[in-house]
């Protein structure tokens, strides 16, 4: 069933359901049929809700679709995982909307770039942006790296300390992201000698 016909089908059942409800008919079979169709032919992938820290279990249903000579997995539904001992299949309004967080026409799909003083965005290739960011990081680090810093010893006398750091680059974020990202990001930041490293977890 193509996208448009599926939508037409649901719209149709919705209308029919409204009519039938007035007649006091049993709607369970119709509802079951609609639910089956939505995730028919899909595979289920285990996931976790990305919103708050309750950690509700989610099931992502994906369907394989042919696209440009290869198959692509398309997310068709995200719902609660009934097996989860935390959530037992339930989700709050945010968790229930996770599908729209991922499948949304407003999502960014290309790099946007704003040159100094510009009033509008430009679209740029990903590789170009990655190279440019790496170059800027190196330039800033190399210009401002310091091996030593004038501090005080335990008696309060001035003393030169080895610090091996650069204070001109900062980073914010991490609490909404995976442990694996936090790990590689902090490993890279520390190895570059960067110390302005923060996320939302200042509690």
């Amino acid at each position: 069933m193509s996208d448009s016909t599926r939508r037409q089908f649901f719209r149709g059942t919705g209308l029919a359901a409204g009519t039938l409800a007035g007649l006091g008919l049993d709607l369970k079979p119709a509802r079951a049929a609609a639910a089956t169709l939505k995730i028919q032919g899909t595979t289920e992938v285990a996931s976790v809700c990305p919103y708050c820290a309750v950690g509700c279990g989610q099931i992502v249903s994906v369907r394989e679709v042919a696209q440009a000579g290869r198959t692509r997995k398309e997310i068709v539904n995200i719902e609660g995982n009934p097996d989860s001992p935390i959530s037992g299949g339930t989700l709050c309004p945010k968790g229930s909307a996770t599908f729209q967080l991922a499948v949304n026409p407003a999502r960014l799909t290309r790099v946007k770039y704003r040159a100094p003083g510009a009033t509008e965005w430009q679209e740029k290739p990903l590789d170009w942006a990655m190279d440019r960011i790496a170059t800027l990081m190196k330039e800033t680090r190399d210009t401002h790296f310091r091996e030593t810093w004038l501090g005080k010893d335990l008696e309060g006398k001035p003393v030169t300390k080895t610090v091996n750091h650069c204070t001109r680059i900062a980073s914010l974020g991490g609490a909404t992201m995976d442990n694996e990202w936090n790990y590689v990001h902090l490993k890279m930041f520390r190895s570059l000698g960067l110390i302005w490293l923060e996320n939302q977890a200042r509690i």
Partner: protein
Amino acid sequence: MPGLGTSLGRGGATTAQQDLQHADAILIMGSNMAECHPVGFRFVMQAKLRGARILHADPRFTRTSAMADTYAPLRAGTDIVFLGGLIRYILEEKRYFHDYVVNYTNAASLITADYRDTEDLDGLFSGFDPATRKYDSESWRYDSEPRREPTNQPKPAQDDSQSFSARAGQLTGPVRTDPSLENPLCVFQILRKHYSRYTPEMVERVCGTPRETFLKVAETLCNASGPDRTAAICYAVGWTQHTTGVQTIRASTIVQLLLGNIGRPGGGIMALRGHASIQGSTDIPTLYNLLPGYLNCPSALKTHETVNDYLRTEVSATGYWVNMPRFLVSLLKAWYGDQSTRENGWGYHWLPKIVGDHSHMPMFIAMDEGQIDGFMAMGQNPAVGGQNAGYQRRAMAKLKWLVVKDLYETETATFWKDSPEVQSGELKPEAIPTEVFLLPAAASAEMDGTYTNTQRLLQWHERASDPPGDARSDIWFTYHLGARLKKLYAESNLARDLPIRAMTWDYLAPEENEGWAVADEPSARLILKEMNGYFVADGKPVTGFAELKDDGSTACGAWIYSGVYAPTEKEPDGHNFAANRGPVVDWVGLNWGFAWPANRRVLYNRASADPAGDPWPKEARLARQFGHGARGYVYWDEKSKTWTGLDVPDFPPKKPPSAKGDPDGIGLDFHDGKSPFLMKADGKGWLFAPSGAADGPLPAHYEPYESPVRNPVYPQVQSNPAAKVWNVPGNEYAPVGSPDYPCVLSTYRLTEHHLSGSMSRWLPWLSSLQPELFVEISPEHAGQIRAKNLDWLEISTPRATIRAKALVTRRIRPFTIDGQVVHHVGMPWHWGYKGVVTGDVVNDLSSLVGDPNVAIHEAKAFVCRVAVAAPRNV
């Protein structure tokens, strides 16, 4: 997290959400759990169905209050008075759990005679230096016998760090005790004296909570605690976001330790966190002052010159932290591989040293002063979420370059284009020199990885689909940026560039990408394996942190997560325990995900058995009902001479309850068989904190930095004397009792939105459920300012004025404090200038001011003025 860490040893919730169902009472405070953690709230409701009493103390009457048996209103920022009142009630009415308190806490420990309490010094503790606004904790130390074996430990570093090690305490020898609890220098008597003024009358006077309501809460909580009952406490950012945030959480640990509720099923303290992996991002800290697993980041302000200096300063001779050298050396091996050798101190000198407070708020002050050139905002949106957000947007206009990575075009990414400052003409895009990169991010369903939830539980989520277009996973961005930097530095022989060359960066497993569009996606599995740790010789994963060594033979990126990728018989190269999905046979659920440390679900669970190792009556009853033949939750089995039970024992498995502590022993040998808090130097739960808190050994009430009233508890000390204050242009504060700003404002969250809205205001479904910003005010307050429901109101602070629609509701009530009427205002803070629905930025109103321990801001209690708005020309 230091609130929990200082008292108990680890900065994480002590229990699991599912365990709340077995509580006999639950006190929810500093949290609107029903609306902010609705699915976790199911377990509160299940407890209620089983007969538990639900108590809610909060400035607002919320859906949580509606579900509670008792709702106690209290003025924002007075939680320590309420909790101090509970502590006093427990002590004076003799409702504490005597056997638990004497054996498992430091109640009997003696404090040095040098200590002076707030009762002696008009609201200050001994050791305060007004010039630096800092305490020296020297006089708060234990009165301990000299250690017979001299050690070469330098004086423990005093700082405001979050590290567990700094908070474990360092003992010179066994602590003198008085098990009768009568010595005036023992912690128990110090506690009695300190909380003597926190009477029900004082609670009513300061918090505005009716005396009878307070006593009902106290009585209910005490009735639900003891050998045969347990009560739990749940809190969220309503407690943390104060200049006294850490001490508020400390106060709750004192309540729970006195009642004997820590380490037991149905008890504990549930820290309700608001981001999917905020616990994880503290464990694996993208935080300036920490290294993975709560090791301190090396600092130029301490004796941290060499790896040996660092270890001598940080390692505690007694308690579990004696193992720290293994964790640090294994971390350096994981990061620098072959280049990390005994000869070069394992590469320790490559780690940069911090030179002060480099947290969020000082970061933006430095930015505003032009001291930061480049800034990366990944999954965080300070243009809306930051405090004094207008200040933060203006600061970003001074950057040379900015990288934002997110799912949608956030306010932070477009501050140069769409911010209120640009709209008003204050900032001109042409004059903003910042080069901005906005990178499209993958959604969680489009990548592999783990989140650590609010109960320390790591859960793996799997890549289900390719991200659209040029969107990439977060680890893709960082991995490929790191690979480019390694290439740029490949030829450099400068000493300062060596760590980049030495850094291990081998995370590609091409076979995992077969059939996917992104062929160079790094492997989250390989990163998880590095965090778990492995043997350097053959690359095989370790089974847990007990296998780690300090001789360079093991590598481990995050010792507390060790075990998450342990080998099994079927999978000798490592099994991903975070991906475990059952079967779940009981409420403990050991087969679902992986909880740090070592898959323990209830921390300090040695305390779920009595001093002799037998289950307390409550645990015995629960085990009979749900335990499949277990005798208790965790208990000593005399036959096998091991600790056993429903959970993974949080105790040396073979150490009998009767074991005596060895006064000359190091590590856990120093502890006796009745010391459940094994991270602490003395093995006891800390009612009194001899070290580890920057603002006092006991929680004391200080008013919020901005307050409409003088501090009624300590008239000589208005606000936290050690609070972090930033007197910089653009961050003006309202004076105490300012007639211009007479109302108390708390910000809060709604069920339908998330944080700054960057994950919710772009979704039509959620935007239509909560389309518009509003301000909740009481009918009395509305009458006073002549406002009607749905009127546009103007809310002002010294930092900003914003507009919102009035929601006049009885959910908000005025408080009478010391005879003065104080109006309270509540505002959700999810709106900004991008997205499907937009609105003014509430955080423009708040200030940059911080708790001295962790530099958390004070968004839950500051002052404002509310007035009916003039019509706006649109």
